[in-house]
């Protein structure tokens, strides 16, 4: 499905390479300075010791990694919520993207703009709005006025975090899905029906597999940043639901234990890498198998 990039035109290959290198230099430098160097520092720190006044003291110990299980709850919370909200985003985003790509007609542009509109305000303000809506003076107050008692508590729950996360991340799922569904050749759907497949069979055998690239990139776009999410659990979870992101802030800024913080950060990166690799492995292998299985 994911095909290699089109071959680069052959003539003037030497000069072509030079141009390519030139164009890639700024990006490469950027990544080198802002990603690889900090990553290296993080790795070095994670094997060091906490100096008595906080911060980093050079050393070579596995101590920090051995202490990671004490933060197990944060890791589990993060992973569970990230997986759940990725799934929820996919479930909510797919019908929306499908509608936009196939049925929306002339309303399509307007709807796409509406979906992108909240992003004109800052992430912080949007989340703060939910803080108010879910807070004691928001929905619970309205429900109370309608006679619901006891008034439900919405803020500072898993539910509040899920709302905030899905609200903020849904468009990241919708847009890649929309693109892949929009590109899907509608004649393939007709061919499927022509050959005897009903609506659902056609969806399962044609639409879904052909929109898989969009679904996969959407899921990654949602899942990866969500693993490092800090503001939403902090504001809507009230610190009650502890995330790795919060743990990191805590370790670096409150207890100033940089080596342990670094180890936790490396741990997070490893968890994300492993989860994403498993996911990509399963999705690609699944497709190959389905194609080959019956013949």
């Amino acid at each position: 499905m994911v095909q290699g990039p089109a071959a680069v035109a052959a003539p003037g290959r030497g000069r072509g390479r030079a141009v390519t290198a030139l164009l890639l230099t700024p990006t490469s430098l950027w990544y080198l300075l802002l990603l690889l160097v900090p990553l290296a520092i993080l790795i070095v720190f994670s094997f060091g010791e906490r100096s008595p006044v906080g911060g980093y003291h050079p050393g070579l110990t596995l101590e920090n990694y051995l202490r990671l299980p004490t933060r197990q709850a944060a890791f589990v919370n993060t992973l569970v919520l990230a997986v759940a909200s990725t799934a929820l985003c996919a479930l909510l985003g797919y019908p929306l993207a499908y509608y936009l790509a196939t049925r929306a007609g002339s309303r399509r542009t307007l709807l796409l703009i509406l979906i992108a509109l909240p992003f004109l305000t800052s992430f912080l303000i949007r989340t703060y709005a939910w803080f108010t809506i879910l807070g004691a003076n928001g929905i619970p107050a309205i429900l109370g006025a309608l006679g619901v008692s006891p008034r439900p508590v919405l803020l500072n729950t898993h539910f509040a975090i899920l709302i905030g996360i899905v609200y903020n991340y849904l468009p990241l799922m919708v847009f890649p899905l929309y693109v892949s569904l929009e590109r899907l050749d509608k004649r393939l759907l007709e061919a499927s029906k022509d050959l005897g497949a009903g609506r659902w069979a056609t969806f399962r055998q044609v639409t879904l597999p052909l929109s898989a690239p969009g679904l996969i990139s959407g899921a990654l776009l949602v899942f990866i940043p969500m693993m490092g999410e800090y503001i939403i659990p902090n504001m809507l979870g009230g610190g009650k639901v502890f995330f790795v992101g919060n743990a990191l802030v805590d370790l670096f800024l409150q207890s100033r234990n940089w080596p342990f913080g670094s180890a936790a950060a490396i741990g997070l990166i490893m968890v994300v890498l492993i989860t994403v690799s498993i996911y990509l492995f399963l999705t690609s292998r699944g497709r190959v198998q389905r194609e080959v299985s019956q013949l």
Partner: protein
Amino acid sequence: MAGQSQERTGQTDVEFRSVTKRFGAVVAVDDVDLRIRAGSFYSLLGPSGCGKTTSLRMIAGFEDPTAGEIFIGGEPVLGVPPYRRQVNTVFQHYALFPHMDVGRNVGYGLRQRRVPREEQERRVQEALDLVRLSAYGRRRVWELSGGQQQRVALARALINHPTVLLLDEPLGALDLKLRKEMQLELKALQHQVGITFVYVTHDQEEAITMSDRIAVMRDGRIQQEGTPTELYDEPANRFVASFLGQSNFFEGELLEDGELAGVRTARGLILWGRRPGSREPLAAGSRATVAIRPERISLAGDPPADAAVDRETATLPGRVLQGTYLGDQSEYQIETDALGPLMVRSINSEGLPAAHFGAGAAVRVAWRARSSLVLGI
């Protein structure tokens, strides 16, 4: 399978009764009546936008007629969804599933019917053998050439043994040589499987070489329906005469209608011509056109002094404007005082005298009145 087709011959597989299809203000198909015999190779022929694809899509079930009724195998099919119709389609750009290999594409229809796996494998292989792609089951579809993709689409559509196979310009994307090959292959295949083929094309030559019957369409209406010979020799109107093959047309005023009709042309010459069997009646005094096929006109090197025209023959003096030697034949543009320019095609067969005339040569142009037709405008 051949036996089965024998039994079904004589039955009607597809029937349109006063079918109209509108898209908003556009009338894509306009009050069409059609009867397609079982086991025949039937073509819908016409220029772009005349409603061929729309007709096909109504048979397949992708569009519903605005008015009128469609029958497949004698049963009305209004409201029957595409996946319940005994009809399969070869789409114009094949519409092969890119995420499946060739074998999976071909077997798609069988999987929908939950055919047992061993039978699936056997029938997929049979279908691939039929289109001469036996070893290609595991290939990815985008690795195939245009002609091979075309054959995969055919195998995929034939595997469910449909009553009717619909083909929408299936050869349109192929180059000329391959198209010629595939024409013969398709025709042979149709004989072999005995399934009714409804074939859409805008290529008159393709329709003539392959079809048992042709319906010529224009602006959503059927202009004429018949065998290729009927359409070529007895076109019902000027549109059909110009769409199938080439013709010289001379417009004028109809003197009298009948089996043989006379027309006073623009320069005053009266031409006689046969009226086609399926003629639309014309009133004396109305506008009409005389159509003469370029190959029905003979050329000779002895120009007469004057034009002589009667109910038997027409003989005119003329001058060659341009002669194009095409090997097996020559094509000439001739200027005549009596009628204006006309096109003549002559076969360069051995028996004829060294027949090629150069530009400027004075010639005798002649044809039999019965070789020309008088048609409505």
